[in-house]
């Protein structure tokens, strides 16, 4: 039973503030993914929870206890690093056992717990090997084993999958998810990959420039992005953002479909629509000039511009299409229930 709560946590290096007050409550056994572009402060935030980085202002509580001034080992956390950080001169067994040795666990218990962990991670045959004799995926598992063997109350992951190839990444992603479910340990996972974030997290925290843009379930973030930033960051391919002028006209002069609910708002508006929420409607005023087609198998991404303007648009059509199989100019229909309105100036959802 472990909860984590951050209360207005800030971090500054000298005069440079990198985390601008993050507050969040993480419930027991929840899997939280912190996602954001590089340099947004997500790793710093994780390291502050771990105790590897000082907290400039605010409080980090684990199980209701302020841990700001506790050493990492006293916070009962375990961390998996991006480059695995295995001890190169120690065997897999010793790598996994090291924290137990320091905690002066008895030899018999160390042996038993390392064996258990190794079996859980299918590392049983590799216990005598050195890290350099292992493949990337195996090293990743050893790093996981090192974290699991301590039976910590919190798992922290710092982009642990970014050094693996695509196939292995998907496999390890599932494994991490399965392990976390099985062990029920509260986890915080940092990544810049939004697919990883969507698939792993019970809840996502989108971080931008040291601020929380949105915190919620993956579906919430996908269906109701709170800002243009979140809208474009979550989902692949990313959401189209089209500027809309006076009289709800698109850049090419066409009027947005009457079915689309329009906000009562003065000022510049932007319409957000995901590529998968656009249909072909031959009779529509909204004409689309096709420039390029990317065939993904199950669907095809069509890149182009709104006819009569230079506003780019991406449309995802089910099935396979080529430039030749489609007309150069097609009519589009934006699904009204899947349109998002944003204030262009602030980027906020309306």
């Amino acid at each position: 039973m472990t909860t984590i709560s951050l209360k207005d946590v800030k971090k500054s290096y000298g005069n440079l503030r990198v985390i601008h007050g993050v507050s969040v409550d993480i419930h027991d056994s929840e899997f939280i993914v912190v996602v954001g572009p590089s340099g947004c402060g997500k790793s710093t935030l994780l390291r502050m929870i771990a105790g590897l980085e000082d907290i400039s202002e605010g409080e980090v509580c684990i199980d209701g206890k302020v841990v700001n001034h506790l050493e990492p080992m006293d916070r009962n956390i375990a961390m998996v690093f991006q480059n695995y950080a295995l001890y190169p001169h120690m065997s897999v067994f010793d790598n996994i056992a090291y924290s137990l040795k320091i905690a002066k666990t008895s030899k018999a218990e160390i042996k038993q717990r390392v064996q258990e962990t190794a079996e859980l991670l299918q590392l049983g045959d590799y216990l005598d090997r050195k890290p350099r004799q292992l493949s990337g995926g195996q090293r990743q598992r050893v790093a996981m084993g090192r974290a699991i063997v301590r039976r910590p109350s919190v798992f922290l992951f710092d982009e642990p999958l970014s050094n693996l190839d695509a196939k292995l990444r998907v496999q390890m992603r599932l494994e991490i998810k399965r392990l976390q479910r099985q062990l029920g340990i509260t986890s915080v996972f940092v990544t810049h990959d939004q697919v990883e974030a969507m698939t792993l997290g019970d809840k996502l925290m989108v971080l931008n420039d040291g601020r929380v843009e949105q915190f919620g379930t993956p579906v919430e973030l996908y269906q109701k992005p709170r800002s243009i930033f979140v809208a474009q960051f979550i989902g692949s391919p990313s959401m189209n953002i089209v500027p809309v002028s006076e009289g709800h006209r698109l850049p090419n002069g066409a009027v947005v479909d009457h079915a689309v609910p329009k906000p009562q708002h003065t000022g510049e508006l932007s319409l957000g629509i995901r590529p998968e929420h656009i249909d072909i409607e031959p009779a529509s005023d909204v004409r689309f000039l096709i420039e390029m087609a990317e065939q993904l198998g199950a669907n095809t991404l069509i890149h182009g511009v709104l006819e009569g303007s230079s506003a780019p648009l991406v449309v995802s059509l089910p099935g396979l299409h080529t430039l030749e199989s489609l007309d150069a100019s097609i009519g589009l229909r934006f699904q009204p229930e899947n349109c998002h309105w944003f204030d262009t100036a602030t980027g906020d959802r309306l």
Partner: protein
Amino acid sequence: MAGMVERNGAGTIISHVGLIFGIAIVCFPIYLAIVASTVEQKDIVSPPLPLLPGGHFIENYKKALLSGVNIPVWRMLVNSTIMAMGIAIGKIVISLLSAFAIVYFRFPLRTFFFWMIFLTLMLPVEVRIVPTFEVIANFGMLNSYTGLILPLIASATATFLFRQFFMTVPDEIAEAARVDGAKPMRFFFDILLPMSRTNIAALFVILFIYGWNQYLWPLLITTDPEMNTIVMGIKQMFPSGDDLADWPVIMATALLAMLPPVLVVVFMQNLFIKGLVDAEK
């Protein structure tokens, strides 16, 4: 075969002749010393110099080792070994610890201290020999192993080397150890030290030879022949007056003085290469 330049037969012969000639120039004096240590005194002093080994090898070396000129050579070998080991191990221990402090701890004036250590690179023993002698003499350390070893034990070079190595160790490893609960010294002994073993082996070779070859310092602070080291001891074997130098014994001593550094290089080279092969990645 893999060479970029095709060689014909004549080129190979010429380059080999050149190489063999060079080796001969280097090896000839050593060969002469070996010859001189196996003949009798009278064979050396009457020209021509003998060029083939004589039959007194065992006799000369026995004489050198057990009685020597002033003091038995085995005694000087023991002294030299203690001094060289003391200097090499002492330098490695001190520089490992100071590099550890400089790289992994943030304390006031850290950079200042680093540059102070670095500055001592410019002050070899010879420059500070008078004040150092004064200090050692006042501490009553003349004619002692402590006096031989202590002033030579601080090493800016080794500190700098270990600092550079520690900086290449990923921060994540130190952090992982911290999360695992290792306190700084535990991290040092369990992780940093084993990871540095190749560097330590390489430095040991260099520092052992440095210590072994010390001449001026032992000459200054050892007045008791019992404390002579072998490198300075060879010089002490030359008679001051009209006495005849006992060349066969001196040559035997010189060759004995060469032996330990050669053994260290040969033995440690194995370990060094093993270390390189074992190194991660």
